[in-house]
């Protein structure tokens, strides 16, 4: 079906507006052979539905068109699966004991070995 017609403008991922032409380009020019690399390169499956609509279609296209046998690695379905407003996530913060803080806070509790200079100016918080 897909091979028979030139449907390059067909929107495969409607959240991100990724077309069949863009997907083919990454498969044929960059040698993309996995669903997750396809997602990273074309943004297909990265939108609000997180691939619930297009992942099967992407599997089909990749299976038919990949230059090398497509990888069997399953599509990475990322939490929270359905969109969750920040407010609702934040409301649940109290109910979790782990983790007890961001990494630099955790790391700073760890005593550093060796000579403290010149590296030991207090590191700041964010990555």
């Amino acid at each position, binding site marked *: 079906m897909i091979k028979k017609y030139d449907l390059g403008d067909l929107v495969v991922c409607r959240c991100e507006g990724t077309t069949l032409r863009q997907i083919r380009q*990454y498969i044929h020019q*960059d*040698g*993309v*052979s*996995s669903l*997750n*690399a*396809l997602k*990273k*390169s074309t*943004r297909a499956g*990265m*939108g*609000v539905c*997180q691939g619930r609509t297009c992942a099967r279609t992407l599997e089909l296209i990749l299976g038919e068109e990949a230059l090398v046998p497509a*990888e069997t690695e399953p599509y*990475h379905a*990322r*939490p*929270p699966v359905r*969109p*969750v*407003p*920040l*407010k609702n*996530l*934040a409301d*649940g*913060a109290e*109910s*979790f*004991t*782990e*983790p007890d*803080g*961001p*990494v*630099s*806070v*955790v*790391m700073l509790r760890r005593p*550093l*070995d*060796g*000579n403290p200079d*010149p*590296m*030991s*100016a207090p*590191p*700041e*918080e*964010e*990555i």
Partner: protein
Amino acid sequence: MKSADVVIIGAGIIGASSAYFLAKAGLDVTLIDSRGPIATGGASQACAGGVRHQARMPVEMPLALHAIKLWKTLGEELDADLEYRQDGMTVLTDEETLIPRLEERVELERSLGLDIRMVYGKELHDLIPGLSPRILAGSHCPVDGHANPMKATSALAAAAERLGARLKFHCQARSLVTLKGRITAVRTSKGDIPCRHVVLAAGAWSKTIAATAEIDLPFHPFPLQMMVTSRQPHFLDQVLGWLGHGISLKQVPAGGYLIGGGWPGIGDLLNGSTRLMPGAMAKRAETSLDLFPSLAPIPVIRAWVGIEAFCVDEMQVLGPVPGIEGLFLAAGFSGHGFAIGPGVGSLIADYFVTGALCKMFEPFTIQRFSAQERKI
């Protein structure tokens, strides 16, 4: 397999930029990665994409200045859109007692040549509309910014390939082969690649590879978690940090608010799999709203984890290794390697061309750990 002057292990931002600059310098380079095209680089792919100078150790500032100068023209040079934006970053505080600490750092960074200043009260809130009224002051660096880590990493690898570098995907480095204290090959899942030089840039995976040459890298793997919201109209130009709260907030060109800041997830180094800690999502959502309350109704659509190598002193290991001729270490960036990645790659190429280690790398050599510490 075909031999190479230099085999680079790991096609993350460090390995890919090293491959690009080495190929550009005319060296015969092979870049290998255990994953497939576009999906390479464990930490680089997952990182929040901050390209900042500020809030680094002073010893790293020259490297950051050098690297960010490269970022300005890198997209053009690679003929790719890296989504690099140099719209500034401000590290904020809501605590009177922390303002002197920020001021002290700003003074120090100014003395190191950085364009940065303190911004207070009304001026700050005019500069960054939407901030919580509790925020009192911030260190504003107009030349900080952000880029798309997936695009940057794959564009560097693709440009390296155009310049003649060989890219080997699904090719896992198993061990370093040495003879009489000198590198002779890299043993991979696809056979040996004879070479005289190796750049080990495999992030958290570097530790087990280095161990095959009896080097003990003082690294431990740290899975870091990020999340992004649905696309929103453009509103926030700057990257925001919040002193002591572990948050970095930015709006990426695609429209989503990307929330990082170094919260832990769960990861398995053996198979590369990762899992999220729901508590990290919830606590960071809470922090985000404390900083920027208007984000409350915006939905988070995706969260993910990448495994980064944290060195025991949270600084990278860069440079050759005494006793193993031909091995160059470039790993353990401890969560602050993406921004300096292109700079590191260009200086590694300089090292291979001139044979001399540049001043900017000197603080980061493995010699900072005693000979006893670095031997298995």
